[in-house]
């Protein structure tokens, strides 16, 4: 073993504290160091994942106190998969925005990279931690970085978006704390495995209330329907790569938290059906809102919300197949939506309103970016032979095996809606005449490399899904096996 899970938190924090000092030595360091940190963590996460797949989950205790006394981090196949995904996307976002911020002053650049790094670290922390209060702390780290990143650009309405996000975020943290305290007051512990072990002792009413508070709080971050008012605004107003980070990293962490609570901690009946219901509502409302959008990033944001709804539905099947499908969907969504955000923000680079009509005819000026955008659009609606198809097939298979015919039909009908609005944009990029006052901006080399990498992954997964399915099967088996998780954590001393 080359390291332990705690390094995923400790090293970026150390680096975050160091970067302002390093910046005093050489200003370029504030851009370089986060990249180095993320690269190291990516390598580390891949190594650890390799180890975990061969030898079983790693449970690391902090400060030498075994569970349930101290805080512990769990690096299992599931969390490991998500960590690799997040670090990878984080690295890509960093690489994409490396020169993007050239024209920005030193101070904001420093803060941008700091916030970005903490965003990723917070999300990774949410996934790794085995303690509900610690998860709360990481959620707050993630949210505060997200507030800052949303409001990063002056001149736009970014502060408005960010303020909405802050409002929702505060409400979320209130409910989260309430839920945590209810659990603590009943079971006297904050460790997830320990709670899961004892949850059957709890007063059923209190259990339900705390679950409701948890879902509400996490649902705000995970963009569940009535709770996602902030999401389109924040996606639309944040810098392009940050939108990708939201879709690919932050939401994934929140969804992970919800399913961890649903699958492992709580033993309520009906939670799965509940996930299906809210997932379906989210999916339908988001996709219908997306089709009438006039702004590209808002459209992508709604699409992202919709996909998360679908992920919820897939988790709601409650079968291993369903979990597999949902994880596959998460992976595909992270990669494809990032590509769409990356390429989309170059397609509307110099426009003020980021209207969809401003991408008209961009294919002549930005051929590769347009091609990649089209690839992403095709992939996300699930057309074979691209990556999105396999996850859609997996979702459908899981639905059929759970006898959810109606859900299947609804999801497919909504997919048609999704298809229509993506095709409209792609058609605009390729077949419309460019609007006169829009000046295209050529992507920088690093951005281009990032986008091509993502495109290559989409094709790779599309043509050779075996590259990921083995891992995903292991991860989903790990999530389903609750007793094993409890045993793994509680047996550590």
């Amino acid at each position, binding site marked *: 073993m080359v390291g332990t899970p705690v390094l995923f938190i400790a090293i970026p924090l150390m680096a975050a*504290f160091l970067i302002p000092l390093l910046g005093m030595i050489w200003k370029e360091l504030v851009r370089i160091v986060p990249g180095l940190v993320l690269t190291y963590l990516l390598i580390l996460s891949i190594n650890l994942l390799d180890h975990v797949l061969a030898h079983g989950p790693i449970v690391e205790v902090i*400060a030498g106190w075994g569970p349930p006394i101290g805080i512990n981090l769990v690096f299992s196949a599931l969390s490991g998969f998500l960590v690799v995904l997040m670090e990878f996307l984080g690295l890509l976002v960093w690489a994409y925005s490396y020169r993007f911020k050239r024209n920005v002053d030193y101070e904001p650049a420093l*803060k941008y990279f700091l916030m970005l790094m*903490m965003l990723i670290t917070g999300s990774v922390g949410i996934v790794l931690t085995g303690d509900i*209060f610690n998860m709360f702390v990481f959620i*707050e780290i993630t949210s505060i970085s997200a507030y*800052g990143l949303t409001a990063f650009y002056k001149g736009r309405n970014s502060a408005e978006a960010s303020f909405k996000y802050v409002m929702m975020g505060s409400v979320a943290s209130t409910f989260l704390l309430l839920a945590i305290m*209810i659990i603590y007051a009943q079971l006297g512990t904050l460790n997830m495995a320990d709670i899961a072990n004892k949850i059957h002792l709890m007063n059923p009413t*209190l259990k339900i209330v705390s679950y409701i508070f948890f879902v509400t709080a996490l649902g705000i971050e995970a963009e569940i329907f009535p709770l996602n008012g902030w999401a389109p605004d924040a996606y639309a107003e944040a810098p392009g790569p940050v939108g990708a980070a939201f879709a690919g990293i932050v939401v994934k962490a929140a969804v992970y938290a919800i399913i961890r609570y649903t699958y492992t901690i709580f033993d309520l009946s009906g939670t799965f059906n509940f996930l299906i219901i809210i997932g379906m509502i989210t999916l339908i409302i988001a996709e219908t809102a997306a089709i009438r959008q006039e702004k590209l990033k808002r459209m992508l944001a709604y699409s992202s919300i919709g996909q998360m709804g679908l992920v919820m539905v897939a988790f709601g099947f409650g079968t291993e197949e369903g979990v597999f499908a949902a994880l596959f969907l998460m992976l595909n969504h992270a990669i494809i939506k990032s590509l769409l955000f990356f390429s989309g923000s170059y397609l509307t680079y110099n426009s003020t309103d980021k209207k969809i009509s401003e991408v008209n005819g961009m294919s002549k000026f930005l051929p590769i970016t347009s091609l990649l955008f089209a690839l992403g659009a095709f992939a996300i609606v699930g057309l074979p032979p691209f990556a999105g198809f396999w996850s859609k097939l997996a979702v459908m298979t899981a639905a059929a095996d759970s006898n959810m015919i109606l859900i299947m039909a609804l999801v497919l009908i909504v997919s048609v809606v999704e298809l229509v609005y993506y095709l409209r944009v792609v058609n605009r990029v390729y077949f419309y005449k460019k609007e006169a006052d829009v000046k295209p901006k050529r992507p920088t080399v690093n951005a281009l490399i990032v986008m091509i990498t993502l495109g290559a992954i989409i094709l790779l997964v599309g043509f050779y899904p075996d590259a990921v399915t083995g891992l995903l099967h292991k991860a989903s088996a790990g999530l389903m096996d609750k007793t094993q998780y409890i045993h793994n954590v509680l047996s550590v001393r």
Partner: protein
Amino acid sequence: MKKVLVILLLAVLGYYTAVTFFDIGFGQPHFVAGVKPVKDIYLAKTVKPLTVSNAVTSIVVNFRGFDTLGEVTVLFLAVTVLGSVLYKKRHAVGERSVLFNASSIVTAGSKLLFPAIILLGAYVFIHGHLSPGGGFQGGVIIATGFLLMLLAYENYSVSHTALSIVESLAGITFAGVGLLGFMHGGTFLQNFLPAGVLNNLFSGGIIPIIYIAVGFKVAAELTGVIYTVLNEKGESNG
């Protein structure tokens, strides 16, 4: 209309929340039967092996020290975000919303009080493992000292660079101590110093060190927050 709706909704929410907590019960053991709450373990282990008097400190810094690291990060981030949100291209020195000296009583009094406040703050965070208080409380006290000075003097200024250096160094100390523990004992934030004697200043292993770092950090960060916001002019056309 909206008000009525909100009040109705809040009434339902309040009812359920209140009932939930009434169910839990106030002022008496509320853990369900058959559960051994962690607080008993914490209380038992605070004296031995940790040799810390203040159980809250032992929890905050040692048992759940990881949370505290996150908490410090949240503060650090808040300052960063604040700087990013309120960043303006040219920093005009002395451009403050409060542009007058306070009366001489206040100025003289603040000068007098300032060292005392700083001393009190330092005392609170150095003795965090012995008595109520700790790094956060001490840090806040120190920051109030700076707030007092900023309010009293028109052109009192704090060096941004110095703040950020203190902040960074304190943060590095915290994370560094954690990593040292990692190298020493195999787990992050593990104690690697001798425990000392209970109720002495030098006890509790790494806990005082961390709390001192936290104290500095909180002080620097809160001062930074105050300073950044104070330097913000209130006009709408910025």
